[in-house]
């Protein structure tokens, strides 16, 4: 049985939406959490540790654990994806912000920047390459984990993969697997491009373009 193009397009869109919604929430939570951890470094170990433990839980197990709590559908899928996406973003925000050159921050303070101005004009732009690298990792992982969301009835491209496996039909499997792979690679390239656009040329290695 061949699936029609509209159905594939619809599930690709759904897959993309699951990924982007969870990663966006992870960025909104993770970056501020990273900033907070830089100010309270004694909490950094525990918080990054807990996020690491969540990461270690097999993705299928995590999805399964959320079903009794949140039922089936998009909701547990987004929560699981968010939890997975969180670690790279928190960790990279924390590492990126705490590795900003001390002298630069000292100079910013010495010139009369407030703490908020130092963060906005100095620390964040300088940590941006590392934060964005975390976001990229999260996005690529999430595209992968989102295929499992089909098992919770959340839809997405996993639907075709699991249906194809059940039907032992390679064409159906491929109609989920190929778009999912293309999606992951495309998003990765898109973020790489965005990184080159957003990160100051002063921070990028090599000759100027």
């Amino acid at each position: 049985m061949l699936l029609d193009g509209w159905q594939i397009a619809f599930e690709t869109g759904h897959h993309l939406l699951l990924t982007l919604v969870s990663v966006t929430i992870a960025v909104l939570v993770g970056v501020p959490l990273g900033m907070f951890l830089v100010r309270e470094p004694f909490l950094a170990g525990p918080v990054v540790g807990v996020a690491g433990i969540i990461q270690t839980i097999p993705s299928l197990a995590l999805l399964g654990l959320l079903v009794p709590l949140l039922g089936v559908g998009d909701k547990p899928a987004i929560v699981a994806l968010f939890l997975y996406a969180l670690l790279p973003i928190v960790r990279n925000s924390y590492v990126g912000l705490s590795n900003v050159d001390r002298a630069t921050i000292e100079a910013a303070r010495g010139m009369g920047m407030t703490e908020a101005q130092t963060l906005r004009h100095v620390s964040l732009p300088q940590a941006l390459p590392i934060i964005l690298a975390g976001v990229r990792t999260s996005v690529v992982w999430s595209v992968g984990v989102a295929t499992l969301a089909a098992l919770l009835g959340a839809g997405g491209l996993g639907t075709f993969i699991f249906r194809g496996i059940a039907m032992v039909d390679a064409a159906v499997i491929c109609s989920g697997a190929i778009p999912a792979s293309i999606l992951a690679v495309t998003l990765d390239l898109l973020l790489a491009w965005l990184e080159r656009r957003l990160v100051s040329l002063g921070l990028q290695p090599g000759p100027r373009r």
Partner: protein
Amino acid sequence: MHDVSRSLGSQQILRHLDFEVGLGEFFVIIGASGCGKSTTLRLINRLIEPTGGRVEVMGRDVSTMDVTSLRRGIGYVIQETGLFAHWTVRQNVSVVPRLLGWPKARIAERVEELLEIVGLPMAEYGERFPRELSGGQRQRVGIARALAADPPIVLFDEPFGALDPVTREHLEIEIRNLQRRLNKTMVWVTHNMFEAVRLADRIGVMHEGEFIRIQSPYALMNEEHGPFVHSLLGPHRFQLRLMTMTLAHLSEAAKLDKPEGSQGIVFDETTNLWDALSISDDKGADSIGIRHGDAVRWLRPRDLWSHIPGLYAA
């Protein structure tokens, strides 16, 4: 006029400092690593707060002032430059004017003027990033940035510590001229005595959190000093001493006529003795002319030593 006096708590990093730096003065704080010289500097712009005593800038107790506006009114240059790597030279130099909300046109004009002052013309360097500059050029940008909003006081924390000796000496001479021309009050931390002698109106020698001497370079080099100052001067005492003396000190001893048949070079009487001797040696000259106004008096280097007070006494 600003006046600094403070002491610091249990660990006694600084002990009852009590000194004053005059308006337009070039004040150099020198001492070994960990003696508290940077701490002292950072008290002035409140990067560190005193645990006792009072720091005053322009007659106002800094603890009563708004910390950000205090800092925006004081230039600050550090060894690592602290340039913002993600911003161009132009953006770096305009930081404080932007914080102060200057209009755009005025900022642009000021940045151009400053880059000209520090010898990095806007057209060539304005749009470069710090990573595209040499160490010396980055320090120049750091200095331009500190001067941007025309602060009356500029603080320097070992700004040239990481530069090679040639660049360093060159920049020292420039900054000294700049300080004279712009009439800024500068407080400069270093552990290099040559730098201190080249720059300072007065040198404060710091040891274990206190000033053991605050003197002019000449007085520091030529008066009796204890074993610590002696060790700080190291094996270069002789050169440092000659650097603090000018030819004017010797004009009494000089004669009106140029010694016959000698190869001579004329220096202004404000030239220091070390420079005069090394330049005349380089050029193979065997007599030195000392210019005072329109008059020139002459001296042979070999006759000079007996006129330096107590030269071989110590």
